């Protein structure tokens, strides 16, 4: 029989690592178990083509990572550097494009090229998004209150929520209520007249979501992509130097430095429950590890439907878990390139190739891409969010060569209701590179190696149920005290000693580290240990 730990964390993704690091920092003997033989989960850099060619295989850019976590876990000391990239570009089929730049005047001029009025409206749009960001950001590092509870802390937290909402003022409360329930297409129409301007803002409303730009609730998804920052520059995104794996590596080094142990290479077969409380984990290789605290960083369905005995759980609870919306909608291509692609629209010396690139003309075209998903196939004219991190980060590839990260919407978890075949995965990859080739002739000839990932690969490799990158849809019915399910939004499972720290929990997906941090605060409180988790930094 092995040593009994103070805590066991299942899944060495960024939230599991964050959680483990805070527990270890508080002096708990902590074990991290990871099914893959590498750590990081979806926050990972892997060398699949050749040595010194890194891919950010899953997540690929960084903005949401809470700066409070970055600082308090000393991630800079453990080698993490996040470098912002400049802006984005949306390329249309007619050869035109629209760029968004960091400098507001330059950005304004570019929008004015398409619509003078929209250039002006951008000020109003940015202001309104920023207002929503300011409101939501203060709740990221807080545990949501239970609105039905009469416990003092829940009442106080509800009061706090109410007070912050009232501070917005009458008009902003109305705006906020509309914003959280609107579709991104409708929201953008209230600001912009030009279809390309609208299209350029719309992608953030559907990335990672099994919803279309015309589906209610997608305006919030946009906010989820805008509420991060790089060094206080809100809405800015950056690259982790060395790929996203640099984040998990720094977190893991911190965890190890505080005495944490890691067992990688065998997944959890089941969470061991005895007399109604979690007491440890049994791994697929037969090993068992014991602890009175078991923290799951796995998705909600994976935790309860795959890794627990249903007899240990209430039927009503299981039903809610089954109803949790966690639908795969995204795919990804990681491509090693022999040189920089040449986008016809960006010919010359545009810096825009260093930023986020999208291939879309209008919200209507984006909605049609969603129609294919509903019909059970991958989008034949997909929405692409692509970056070439090696343009900025010299550590990704040898000089002159490039790594291109191509995120794709929409890709269904099953094709026509059936499991993906290897052939279909390759066909999907071809659909995407054909699309890029149209905008960058000669692109195909540059490809040295390609990793194609559909929801099938995301689930089997990373454990993301159905391949949903956020560990659950980001809609009002699954946000704040409704996330993951009502009554269980405070990081505690239905079984004593079982905690949840993954993105299925508030405040949701993205490489944010907030669920992991918030769960650690709850665990340390329950154990009456000194809290090592920071409060959020408040703006005023």
């Amino acid at each position, binding site marked *: 029989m092995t040593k009994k730990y103070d805590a066991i964390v299942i899944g060495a993704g960024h939230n599991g690592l964050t959680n483990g690091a805070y527990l270890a920092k508080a002096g708990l003997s902590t074990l991290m178990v990871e099914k893959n033989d590498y750590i990081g989960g979806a926050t990972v850099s892997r060398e699949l083509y050749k040595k010194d060619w890194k891919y950010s295989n899953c997540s690929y850019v960084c903005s949401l990572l809470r700066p409070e976590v970055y600082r308090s876990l000393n991630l800079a000391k453990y080698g993490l550097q996040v470098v912002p990239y400049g802006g984005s570009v949306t390329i249309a089929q007619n050869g035109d494009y629209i760029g968004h730049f960091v400098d507001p005047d330059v950005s304004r001029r570019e929008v004015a090229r398409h619509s003078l009025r929209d250039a002006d409206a951008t*000020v109003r749009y940015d202001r309104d998004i920023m207002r929503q960001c300011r409101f939501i950001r203060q709740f990221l590092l807080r545990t949501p209150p239970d609105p039905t509870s009469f416990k003092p802390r829940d009442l106080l937290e509800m009061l706090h929520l109410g007070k912050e909402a009232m501070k917005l003022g009458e008009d902003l409360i109305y705006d906020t209520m509309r914003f959280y329930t609107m579709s991104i297409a409708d929201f953008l129409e209230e600001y912009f007249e030009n279809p390309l301007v609208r299209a350029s803002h719309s992608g953030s409303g559907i990335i990672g979501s099994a919803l279309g730009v015309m589906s209610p609730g997608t305006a919030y998804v946009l906010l989820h992509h805008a509420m991060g920052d790089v060094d206080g520059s809100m809405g800015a995104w950056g690259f982790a130097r060395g790929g996203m794996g640099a984040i998990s590596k720094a977190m893991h080094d911190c965890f190890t430095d505080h005495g944490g142990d890691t067992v990688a290479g065998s997944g959890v077969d089941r969470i061991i429950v005895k007399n109604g409380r979690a007491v440890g984990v049994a791994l697929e290789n037969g090993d068992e590890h014991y602890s009175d605290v078991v923290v799951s960083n796995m998705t909600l369905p994976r935790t309860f439907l795959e890794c627990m005995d249903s007899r240990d759980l209430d039927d009503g609870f299981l039903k809610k878990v089954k109803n949790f919306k966690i639908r795969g909608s995204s795919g990804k291509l990681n491509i090693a390139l022999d040189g920089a692609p040449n986008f016809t629209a960006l010919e*010359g010396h545009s*810096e825009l190739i260093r930023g986020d690139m999208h291939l879309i003309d209008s919200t209507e075209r984006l909605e049609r891409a969603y129609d294919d998903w509903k019909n059970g196939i991958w989008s034949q004219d997909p929405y692409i969010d692509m970056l070439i991190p090696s343009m900025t980060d010299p550590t990704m590839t040898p000089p002159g060569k490039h790594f291109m990260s191509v995120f794709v919407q929409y890709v269904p978890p099953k094709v026509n209701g059936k499991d993906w075949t290897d052939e279909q995965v390759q066909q999907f990859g071809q659909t995407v590179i054909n699309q890029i080739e149209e905008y960058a002739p000669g692109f195909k000839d540059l490809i040295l190696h390609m990793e194609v990932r559909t929801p099938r690969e995301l689930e089997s490799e990373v454990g993301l149920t159905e391949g949903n990158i956020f560990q659950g849809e980001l809609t009002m019915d699954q946000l704040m005290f409704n996330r993951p399910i009502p009554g269980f939004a405070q990081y505690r499972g239905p079984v004593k000693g079982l905690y949840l720290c993954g993105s299925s929990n508030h405040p949701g997906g993205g490489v944010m580290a907030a669920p992991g941090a918030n769960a650690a605060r709850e665990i340390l409180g329950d154990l009456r240990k000194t809290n090592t988790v920071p409060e959020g930094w408040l703006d005023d």
Partner: protein
Amino acid sequence: MQNHYENAVYPSPFHSRQKQHNQLKEWSRWADYLSVPAYWCESMEYFAGRNACGVFDITPMVKHRVTGPDALPYLNRLMTRDVRKIKPGRVGYSVWCNEQGRVIDDGTIFHLAEGDYRICSQEHQIDWFMTNALGFDVTVAEDTHDVAGLALQGPTSCAVLKDMGLKGIENLTPFGLTTFDFEGTELMVSRTGFTGDLGYELWIDPEHAERLWDRLFEAGELRGIMAMGSDALELLRIEAGFILAGVDFLPAMEAVRPTHTRSPFELGLGWLVSFDKGIFNGRQALLEEKEKGSRYNLVKLDIDGNKPASQSYVYTPNKKFAGTVTSAMWSPSAKASIALASLEAPLGKPGEEFEVEIYYQRELKWSRVMAPARVVKDVFWDPPRKRQTPPADF
């Protein structure tokens, strides 16, 4: 125009001439254009504006054209002041508000002809102006890049324009506007400016901009004409008591924190609000504010001592927080430390005494002084020549 990134900032139509004068080789940006902070000496350029005349490029100012049969009713709904009172050939200062009665921007309304107006503003406004055009028979367009502008400000400015051949310019009264034939091109001249002194603004087709600059400097050579940068203008406008968007108030369209915005009353611009002209944007909110009282007063402070009070806190004599300074300087013309400050209402009545917490540095050593200050009613620099028609030659 896909090569926009090659010229992300426009050179002004006067750029070639600015370049000749710009000895310091420093450039700044003003909206879409390159601008000059100081050509060779901020102080010399400032005194040109008070002693002779200075030339300041105002092309970057955002310009709009409003035309059509409903131009007047449209503007009267948009603006807080009664635009009917700005007759053709006249210019009026105004602010415009959102429905909460908070100032979006301030600017000048040029009544060019019946049903034809130009609106100059600090911020881009075309989206808001067009939104407001719904239901009016009016055409609203931005024509910033189609009009080049120069401000000629200072006591010799009228004489320079006379020497340049603008016959009868001396008869133009303050806030008047007129046009001249300038070597075959129309030159519009208004007796307006941002310096609180005698001065004019000249408006011309950008194609003829360089020629205008040249003629002006030829005519002004013996009258102390000097190119003036934005640093000098900043000093001139504070002395004149003019407020600046983004400095003395936060434009409502940009305000992430809505409570940080100001109403016209809170900026000391109650005289620009006309309740008896009918409905206008913000009327209801402003009526309520008038009844309940405002949250702030923007005041002019005369501060004891010689230290400029930039970015200072203002306290009551019994050390209670009263507000903050928005703009401050040592005034070379008033020979006083002066400031504009936003104080919490009802504080800020003329004559009321305060203390200003000033941090100042001498050879890298910081010190702090609590300087007594009082609210003054009149602007710090208000020479009679500003109003005199015809103006003297110097």
